[in-house]
């Protein structure tokens, strides 16, 4: 399941909803991405996430389908926010459930790595040095790249 929304989310409720009534799930891995207060030595006042409505959902669904095909997953959830966020705010939640904890961990990491390089979001930071668009990181490309080797 994927969701793209302006509103905040409650990780505990999301995880609970995903596993409610299920007694066949052995492990749930989750990742929460948060807005940091510093970037490149400058203080961040706020961050605005722009996205490509329609394409975002399509890409996230494709990434979810890819993960389900690669690993034995009982459930997957991706929630990604857009709009203006403050330091400490939640940006993204990825949850994977599996009877195998290695699968849950690998799939969760794959999903966050891939969405960082494929989901059409762009971050505009309001910093103490003025506004600026966050640049894509080589390290994110490399992180995504490792999933294409196997």
């Amino acid at each position, binding site marked *: 399941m994927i969701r793209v929304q302006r509103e905040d989310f409650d990780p505990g409720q999301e995880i609970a909803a995903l596993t409610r009534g299920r007694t066949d799930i052995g492990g749930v891995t989750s990742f929460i991405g948060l807005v940091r207060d510093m970037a490149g030595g400058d203080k961040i006042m706020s961050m605005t996430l722009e996205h490509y409505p*329609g394409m975002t959902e*399509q890409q996230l669904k494709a990434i979810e389908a890819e993960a389900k095909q690669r690993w034995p997953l009982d459930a997957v959830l991706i929630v990604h926010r857009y709009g203006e966020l403050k330091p400490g705010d939640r940006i993204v939640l990825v949850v994977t459930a599996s009877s195998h904890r290695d699968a849950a961990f690998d799939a969760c990491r794959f999903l966050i790595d891939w969405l960082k390089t494929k989901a*059409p979001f*762009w971050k505009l930071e309001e910093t103490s040095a003025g506004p600026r668009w966050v640049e894509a990181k080589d390290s994110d490309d490399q992180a995504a790249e490792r999933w294409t080797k196997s």
Partner: protein
Amino acid sequence: MKLLYFAWLRQKIGTAEETLDPPGSIATVAQLIDWLKTRGPNYVEALTNTKLVRVAVNREYVPYDHRLKPGDEVGLFPPVTGG
């Protein structure tokens, strides 16, 4: 053809969305980008460094040699930074 621009590409071009009718000689994404650059210095500034310009046609990533069809939705944007 519907064109959508995002992030600093949108800011540099000065619009988020426009409907254009490129000449029939424009067959590929690369040709479309070259043609857009003839439309003004704002396009030139946004599109000159093609290493920083990603393209989606009908919401799927495509390479620059992708062939366009009438009615395509073309998104142009910088490398993504979500997550």
